[in-house]
């Protein structure tokens, strides 16, 4: 397949870098030091999230790459996306799907830090097959080099990406008002830039959408969907609360797209860079649509659980922690009666 050797022009790269900076700043602005402490308070949730984010997702990505026989560059990009940390987008979607926002934020913070160690390990483990394929291709093309995953560069780009996050957190501490503004602006900007990239790609390389193999579309859409599906059932099977199931599901499927842009731009070179970037852009576009759909489904599906959870929580807030909300017999379905988690307080456990 002939792939345009330069997907992005210089000005786009600057724009993209600026966007990544602002988005990560916005992400930092939504975090406080307390969020890190919260991770320690809900170890079970965060651990489940960790397992599904760094265990399930990369495996799904690897599986998809093998089954769909993706081009090695696409495959590496897909696996890279598979082991990314979560972003702030997932927090917003979790909020609207009536999931636990606190857990979502804890998972985002934990995975962002953990990614520093986990990403290089997973990436070098899972991409062996594809890097050797790439090396073979390059040798066949007459080059003398060997393709290796630039582990060092990936770690340094991750660290670089964390700089604006920390700046954002400082901003939040200094001026919460500005931080809020930053958060909103960042979200808005992300939508604008992704649309801009898609549109320019469309204008400059009109054929690109047609040239892209169907398998790439399936992989980019499927990665997120499979993440939602397995994240949901994994957490449900090990007995998490409904509100946590929804949070883990979304957090697993939604990855921090901008971080992947940063890593690809900073750590990889042509001939693979453009292809990797293209897959990342496609993923970022489709994930917004699929997670909107999933959120709407969760929102409707989870309304009853949520109403009960919320009402119980408010009773405890206003009437004291000892107050026990007793619903009439037959009102709660079996799955909720047996769920010890519907209340927030020990007294609420039925």
């Amino acid at each position, binding site marked *: 397949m002939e792939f345009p050797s330069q997907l992005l022009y210089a000005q786009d790269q600057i724009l993209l870098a600026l966007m990544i900076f602002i988005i990560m700043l916005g992400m930092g602005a939504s975090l406080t030091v307390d969020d890190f402490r919260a991770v320690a308070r809900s170890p079970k949730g965060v651990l489940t999230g960790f397992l599904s984010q760094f265990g399930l997702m990369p495996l799904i990505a690897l599986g998809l790459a093998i089954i769909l026989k993706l081009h090695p560059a696409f495959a590496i990009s897909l696996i890279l996306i598979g082991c990314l940390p979560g972003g702030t987008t997932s927090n917003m979607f979790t909020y609207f799907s009536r999931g636990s926002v606190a857990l979502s934020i804890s998972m985002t913070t934990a995975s962002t830090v953990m990614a520093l160690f986990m990403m290089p390990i997973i990436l070098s483990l899972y991409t062996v097959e594809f890097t050797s394929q790439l090396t073979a291709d390059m040798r066949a093309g007459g080059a003398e080099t060997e393709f290796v995953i630039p582990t060092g560069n990936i770690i340094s780009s991750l660290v670089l990406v964390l700089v604006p996050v920390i700046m954002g957190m400082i901003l939040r501490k200094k001026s919460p008002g500005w931080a809020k503004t930053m958060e909103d602006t960042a979200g808005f900007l992300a939508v604008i830039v992704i649309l801009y990239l898609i549109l320019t790609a469309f204008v400059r390389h009109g054929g690109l959408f047609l040239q892209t193999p169907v398998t790439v579309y399936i992989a980019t859409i499927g990665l997120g969907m499979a993440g939602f599906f397995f994240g949901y059932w994994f957490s449900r099977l090990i007995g998490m609360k409904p509100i946590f199931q929804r949070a883990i599901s979304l957090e697993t499927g939604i990855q921090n797209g901008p971080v992947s842009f940063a890593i690809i731009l900073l750590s990889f070179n042509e001939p693979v860079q453009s292809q990797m970037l293209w897959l990342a852009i496609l993923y970022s576009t489709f994930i917004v649509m699929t997670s909107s759909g999933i959120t709407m489904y969760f929102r409707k599906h989870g309304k009853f659980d949520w109403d009960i959870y919320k009402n119980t929580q408010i009773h405890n807030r206003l009437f004291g922690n000892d*107050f026990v909300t007793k619903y009439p017999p037959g009102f709660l379905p079996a799955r909720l009666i047996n769920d010890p988690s519907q209340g927030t307080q020990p007294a609420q456990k039925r």
Partner: protein
Amino acid sequence: MEYARFERIEADNLALLYSEAAKRFDDLPAFATRKSAQDWQPVTYKELYRQGLNLATGLIAYGVKARDHVGLFGDNRYEWILADYGVQLCGAADVPRGRDVSDAELKYIVGHAGITFCFAETKQLAIRLLKLQVELPALRHIVMLDPAAELPEGVLRLQDIYRKGEELRNQGDREAEERIAGIRPDDLFTLIYTSGTTGTPKGVMLTHANMMSQIRNLPGHHNCTDRTLSVLPIWHVFERIIEMYTISFGGCTYYSGIITLSEDMQNVEPTFMASAPRLWEKIHEKILANIKKAHPVRRLLFKIAYFLAKQYKNSEYFIKNKDLKLKRQPAWKRWLLMPLHVLRWIVVLPWYGFFNAAVLERIRLGAGGSLAATISGGGALPIHIDKFFNYVGIPVLEGYGLTETSPVISVRPKLNLVVGTVGPPIKETELRIVDPETGETLFPDPACTAGGRGKRGEILVRGPQVMKGYYKEKNLTESAIRDGWFHTGDLGMMTHNDCLKILGRHKATIVLSSGENIEPEPMEMHLQQSKYIDQCMVVGQDKKFLGLLVVLNGCEFVKNGIKHRSLQELVQIPEARELMKKEIRRLISPATGFKNYERIGDFRLLPEKFEVGHELTNLFKIKRHIVTEKYSDLIDHIYSNHSPKK
């Protein structure tokens, strides 16, 4: 839905509703009283019913008979609902009124309703009633609700009655149960005196059947996880029906107040509430003020969000056929515009989605975030407020009704949201639009195009919620209810998508947005005493203050040295306006016996006289709706600057 059977209780009367709710909802909280922002005192359904039975037994012991009228004077608090439980469970009816009742009204109500036993919320109210007792020998017992206040001599405490009843019940007294069994659907549960429109208040007789039909027919799906915030006065039948409705589905009612409202909205996160236009005006003002104070970027984000929401919702309303349809529209026009709206809807959707989530949700959180619906009643909701909240995504559902119809006649359900209307009539309710002059039925009229939709006239209503009548006012009742049709005195029309649009009052009474009722005719008579005023009309329905339209008496101005050739010229002269201003201030003031809210905030001089056949009837009575329509620009101008001119 598998939980549908938990949606609402249907019973024959309020007492049975209370007892069924105690059985079904048992230990769920029924009412909660605020102690501090985060500390509320709940009382469960079972406990409330138990206390209610004790109180009822106590009331019987103090001589309250079945179908007696028991006064209940006070505002929203737990003891109010307990007293109501007591009254209903001993088969009597209550006569409620708020703390702000005047002595004259109190005297009239107690006398007219034949009250022998009454509750008074506060010490002051109890003392006022004590003083009136001299002129009202029939009034035997006054019971104070406030448990904390010091007890004036000659007044009983609620606890006294309660303990008496508790003692009797412990001894096996079960007379309350017999009383409950004896309640007929046709018996009154309340007798509400509407604030005086034409001098004396009228006692509206509402029966158990009226109330039960409302509980049965109100649209909406609620269950025992719902939270209702109570902020309107409980003695208004609208707030009362919402609290009774809440009991029927097992929700909890939280007593809030105007002062703590915004705090309570965030702590209680209500899912349902009864509200009034003034409340939403205030919240609207507050939201706008906050946006003005906010960071410029956020302000911009809000503006974009609001703009997108407007585009999105307007297209959605159009596509779903929920736009305001006052005029008949040809079908081809709709189909021609349809693709454009669908296109706009699709283009705006992703942007709206983002801004809705990021910006508008924060505004909704200000109202607690869980608010699934709030019915606004008790006056017309200004269209810009209505639009604002529905664009932002806080479903303010406008309803329409009167005390006489207990009160809901129609309400905009969430799934049939036509902004600017009060929705279709609720179940079991029939509507008619009738020409106020000739009495001819305009809607429904099969002979007419579109069945009479889009024609304006007086609204008539027939249904199970229409009152039994005015107490001891046979003539008034007969003129209000003819052949089962209640004449509302309001003007309205049926839109082309079958929603009711209210167009003002046919009866002259002006209701300000603060809820004050003003009878304009006596005021106009008073104003016309002035030699400078030829004719005048007071306006201000649903506004914050009264306005006046004046036709000047030209000759008197000439005598005063203000020369002019025509009325048109006179109204342009600043001195004339200045003179008029002084004159109005002289005539309408507390010194001349007018209340503060009856002050004329602003006025406009009319360039033409009112003519018979146009603005005047043959009997020289002003046709208010004609004048309002003709000078709508001038009236709008009076209220375009928000504060009244001093």
